[in-house]
């Protein structure tokens, strides 16, 4: 049967080529489409995580909803000691965030001012790599402020300029100081760049009475996919019902939701795409088969079983699918690979997604052999499904009836 199928595909060159080309094109489109979708999602996720949000963050309950000094984490050291024991955690850092008024002689602006551990932030976030001018903080930075570039512009500040800070310390008392702009940063997120500034905790804690307290602890994992698992581990180890430990999925719910919506639309358009491929291949196969009803009838008459007929159709589509995918896969994989390393640049993409912290106008593809593997599986499946209806159509004729079919 295989040989006959092979000869059929070679004999009917036109329609074999057309089927193979269809499969070829749909394989390439399909792989690229999935790769692009996955790639852009990964990029959004990675960028937003890298800037400032951790894979997991630990808060005092209600801090995120209500905020304020009552909901600071106390006795931070006890918690971080416990975190140090968890294998899967690559790094953690404590942050003390507060809001205050920054002003120079003429301008003032409200800003988040956060006390950070500069050495640890280098590992945890991309704050350091967002540096545009000056030098990133370290623990001897004293009253140096690391300021978002948009905020600096708003306040008309340059490197070395002084700026007054007014806020309230962790005990509720009045806190004021003069900071000096040591460096500016640009993440690409306008929101963030226009309302954030950072001070080394070593200095800021004194001012704010914030020693051994924190707004939250941010955690970086060795592998982000472990987030849920490690999170439950953290909850068990810390064992404090006043604290909550949340993964990025919760922390960035808005973004995750929009990504999921995006994914749902992705899947809808994907299934439309597959339905189209399916019908194109099937209708094409059906037309082919209809024109061969007579031939199949003859085969049935001289003693081929229905199973034999099915085998012929199956092998034909198998041969063509293999041919098409063998050609298409390396091409598609190479394109994915190429664009995963050299992402496509689309001007303006960052503007659309800047709320989510997309920094670059780049859309990387995802190069993942497993994904390509299941994509191929889907293509084969569609192709095989597409012979079922033509097969049933053939069988709707009796053997002799079919030989008379025109």
């Amino acid at each position, binding site marked *: 049967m295989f040989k006959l199928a092979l000869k059929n595909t*070679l004999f*009917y060159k036109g329609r074999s080529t057309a089927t193979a080309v269809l499969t070829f094109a749909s394989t390439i489109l399909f792989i690229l489409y999935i790769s692009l979708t996955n790639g852009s999602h990964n990029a959004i996720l990675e960028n937003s995580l890298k800037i400032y949000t951790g894979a997991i963050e630990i808060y005092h309950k209600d801090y995120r909803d209500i905020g304020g000094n009552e909901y600071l984490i106390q006795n931070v050291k006890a918690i971080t000691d416990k975190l140090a024991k968890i294998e899967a955690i690559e790094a953690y850092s404590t942050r003390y965030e507060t809001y205050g008024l920054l002003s120079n002689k003429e301008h003032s602006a409200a800003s988040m001012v956060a006390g950070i551990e500069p050495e640890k932030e280098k590992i945890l976030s991309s704050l350091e790599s967002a540096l545009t001018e000056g030098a990133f903080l370290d623990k001897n930075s004293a009253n140096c402020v690391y300021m978002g570039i948009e905020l600096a512009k708003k306040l008309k500040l340059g490197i070395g300029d002084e700026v007054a800070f007014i806020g309230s310390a962790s005990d509720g008392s009045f806190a004021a100081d003069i900071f000096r702009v040591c460096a500016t940063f640009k993440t690409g997120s306008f929101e963030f760049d226009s309302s954030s500034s950072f001070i080394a905790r070593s200095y800021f804690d004194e001012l704010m009475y914030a020693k051994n307290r924190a707004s939250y602890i941010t955690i970086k994992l060795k592998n982000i996919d472990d987030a849920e698992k490690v999170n439950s581990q953290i909850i068990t180890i810390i064992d404090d019902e006043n604290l909550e430990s949340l993964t990025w999925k919760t922390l960035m719910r808005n973004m995750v939701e929009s990504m999921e919506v995006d994914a749902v639309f992705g899947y809808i358009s994907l299934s439309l795409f597959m339905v189209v491929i399916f019908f194109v291949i099937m209708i094409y196969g059906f037309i082919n088969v209809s024109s061969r009803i007579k031939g199949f009838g*003859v*085969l049935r*008459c*001289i*003693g081929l079983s229905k199973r034999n007929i099915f085998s012929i159709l199956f092998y034909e589509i198998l041969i063509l699918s293999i041919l098409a995918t063998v050609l298409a896969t390396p091409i598609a994989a190479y394109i994915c690979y190429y664009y995963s390393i050299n992402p496509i640049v689309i001007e303006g993409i960052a503007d659309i997604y800047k709320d989510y912290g997309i920094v670059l106008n780049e859309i990387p593809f995802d190069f993942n052999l497993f994904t390509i593997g299941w994509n191929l599986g889907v293509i084969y499946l569609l192709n095989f499904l597409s012979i079922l209806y033509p097969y049933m159509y053939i069988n709707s004729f009796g*053997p002799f009836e079919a030989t008379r079919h025109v």
Partner: protein
Amino acid sequence: MIKLQNVNKYFYRGEPREVHALRDINLIIEAGEFTLFRGPSGCGKTTLLNVIGALDSCDSGEIFLQEREITALSEGERTNLRLHEMGFVFQAYNLIPVLNVEENIGFVMRLRGFSDSDIKKRVLEVATLLEIDNKLKSLPNALSGGQQQRVAVARAVAAKPKIILADEPTANLDSKNSEILIGMMRELNEREEISILFASHDELIMRSVTRIVTLIDGAVADDYKQ
């Protein structure tokens, strides 16, 4: 031996356009007979060949091939029966266009699992007999009608079936080619003890066969051996 007992066949049974295509057919065809079914167009010749060849079912009556009741077989069993015991020659040759002459002739044997060397030997044997041995590597569409029909006969006989059913095998051939074909089939019939059943109007066939069954309106009107 083929035995038909009270075979009836209808098309569109129960509808106003019902056709009673075969009426109470009773026939015994001995092994090795060279038989012609004849009669006016629409009398049921093709239908009769088809029910004997297990291509079609009948509505009542029984057909036996040797001891086996064809009419009681499942579809799969009938397919198997066609493969192992029957050979078919069609009016329109119906060769497999993608296979060359040699492969076409050997096709049924291959399906039945004969060894390559057996197939090769037998193909050459029947091809020589039918004088197409010089065309073994050609594709069917490179052959004349007469040659194609000889390939079809070769395909039908190659696997040594018990019966060959040939529906108007000469309808597309000129008289010279018809004569050659019938002569060769007669030779095969005698040499290999294959029963051959024709359905045809062809005078030529009428002169060559050993038995003529005349059908009229689906019933046997006349049956004589010459």
